[in-house]
């Protein structure tokens, strides 16, 4: 009888073939056994987690999806449609306020400008983030022109009806603040980080003072400075719109953090890289552009995404100086007698919006890290 499996067969030395791994360590069963039931503690944790999910998930789905009311005129109408009043989510509230959530108080007839800007933003993001886009060279020029194009679209002038920045609000305001601060903080942060490592004392001290000052003061304090005091420091006659002032403050704030992230990345580059570049006769700027920054920024990706996500969420702080971001809109909507008492739905919706934005940033960064990995 020939029941010898390949592994039990005898081979002359040097002729042993590569065999597949035992079935118990590969495949789905192998995975479950290794990751979920490998030890008594692991088994207990697995069962506890499964039990916890079993208790939490079904009621949540019932509340938020199956029993939820999507169309109603008021809170009372909403509750009237439910088996148990207040027993499920009333998403009709969000639907009723959706336009304000997205556009703030932007004039209704001009909202196509916001939509167009968002479309342009999506194109810019695709060009900036994915290198397989067609005609990418022009796409990058487009990305440079994008802030000015959208600035013109949103603020108006030059043929378009001007829109007061007081009317900016909701998700649109969050996007304007977040995207501007994030996009400009990257180049400014790189310059600050290089300045901080410069051998020129004056430049270095200026950069260090700037970074440490900005990082040492709460963003809220800086926003109050922007809303109340900044005009005292500027020459008489100059006037900056509040939104512009807040944009500047948020950008500088994000830049200081980005600078420290870049500095961390720069410190991760071995001295030998500079020396090799020097020995080949590359100048300071070429060395940084071609050799140091590509490597340093790659190491910095997780740190960048961390500060970017923080910056994006920090945009909600403008609520305090009276700007109507989604949180501000939500709070004022809750004050409406027709809908009062639906705070859960409101805050869940806002949380969901921020989560989707931040989670996509996080996923993109993982994708980018994988793509740029050359194994060092």
């Amino acid at each position, binding site marked *: 009888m020939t029941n010898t499996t390949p592994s039990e067969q005898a081979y002359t030395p040097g002729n042993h073939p590569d065999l597949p791994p035992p079935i118990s360590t590969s495949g789905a069963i192998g995975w479950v056994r290794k990751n979920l039931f490998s030890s008594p503690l692991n088994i207990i944790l697995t069962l506890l987690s499964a039990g916890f999910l079993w208790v939490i998930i079904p009621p949540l789905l019932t509340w938020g999806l199956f029993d939820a009311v999507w169309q109603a005129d008021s809170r009372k109408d909403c509750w009237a449609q439910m088996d148990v009043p207040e027993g499920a989510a009333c998403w009709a509230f969000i639907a009723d306020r959706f336009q304000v959530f997205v556009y703030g108080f932007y004039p209704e007839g001009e909202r196509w400008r916001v939509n167009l800007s968002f479309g342009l933003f999506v194109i810019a993001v695709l060009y900036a983030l994915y290198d397989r886009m067609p005609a990418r060279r022009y796409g990058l020029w487009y990305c440079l022109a994008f802030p000015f194009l959208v600035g013109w679209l949103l603020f108006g002038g030059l043929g378009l009806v001007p829109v007061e920045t007081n009317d900016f609000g909701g998700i649109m305001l969050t996007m304007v603040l977040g995207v501007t601060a994030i996009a400009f903080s990257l180049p400014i942060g790189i310059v600050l980080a290089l300045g901080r490592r410069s051998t020129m004392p004056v430049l270095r001290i200026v950069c260090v003072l700037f970074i440490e000052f900005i990082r040492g003061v709460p963003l809220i304090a800086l926003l109050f400075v922007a809303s109340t005091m900044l005009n005292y420091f500027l020459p008489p006659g100059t006037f900056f719109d509040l939104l512009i002032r807040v944009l500047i403050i948020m950008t500088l704030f994000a830049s200081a953090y980005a600078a420290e992230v870049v500095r961390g990345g720069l410190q991760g580059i071995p001295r030998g890289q500079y020396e090799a570049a020097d*020995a080949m006769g590359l100048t300071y700027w070429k060395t940084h552009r071609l050799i140091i920054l590509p490597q340093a920024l790659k190491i910095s990706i997780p740190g960048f995404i961390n500060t970017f996500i923080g910056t994006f969420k920090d945009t909600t702080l403008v609520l305090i100086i009276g700007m109507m971001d989604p949180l501000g809109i939500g709070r004022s909507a809750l004050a409406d007698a027709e809908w009062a008492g639906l705070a859960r739905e409101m805050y869940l919706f806002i949380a969901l919006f921020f989560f989707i934005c931040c989670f996509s940033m996080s996923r993109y960064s993982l994708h980018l890290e994988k793509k740029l990995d*050359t194994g060092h």
Partner: protein
Amino acid sequence: MNEPNTDKPPIDSTDSIISITGMHKWFGDFHVLKNIDLEVGRSERIVICGPSGSGKSTLIRCINRLEEHQRGKIVVDGTELTNDLKHIEVVRSEVGMVFQQFNLFPHLTILENLTLAQVWVRKIPKAEAEAAAMSYLERVKIPEQSAKYPSQLSGGQQQRVAIARALCMNPKIMLFDEPTSALDPEMIKEVLDVMIELAESGMTMLVVTHEMGFATAVAHRVIFMDGGEIIEQNTPVEFFENPKHDRTKLFLSQILHH
């Protein structure tokens, strides 16, 4: 490799390509190079050895200004090294360097490592630079690796790429800073073979190394340094067979025994 190369062409000692006179260097308070005088002739091959911390690496790093000297004079092919960036640029364009840790650029492919400086410093068109890069990769016998990244190569292959990268700039002088010290034993020979071939082509070479077989086969002159000074220099045969100085004898007994 261990057989002495008998047909080393004589070096014209009046025509020096590197001239160092009365050179001193300090790291902070530490006097690392003391009154160095060194003339290197065209096509001369010099091996520099000495215990660690003797200043041998610092000496060759002063020649392309990776380190700045504080006193004395260094003239490389008629250009004096001063704080003038133009002078430094000229010298660096004539001097290639190979490091102990290879220092390849890990985010670029092998081919890109070789073309980068040609394109950005020499302003050579990309296609031409790539052709030159491939010919040097063939010379170091790894043209098939051109599309890979440095991390995918063995240490010996990386060091050969580093040599090819330096050669792409058409240097008149090549500096080697312990090129085989970071390599596994079985890879040392492939790198030394490339260096020997380079020596035979008439390149001026300064090599910091403890590979005494290489010194015997290739060098015109062996320099022994200790404590920041040049203690002794001689032809390889004289240097190994009749060391004059006690410190040289001690050093040689230590490295030859291991």
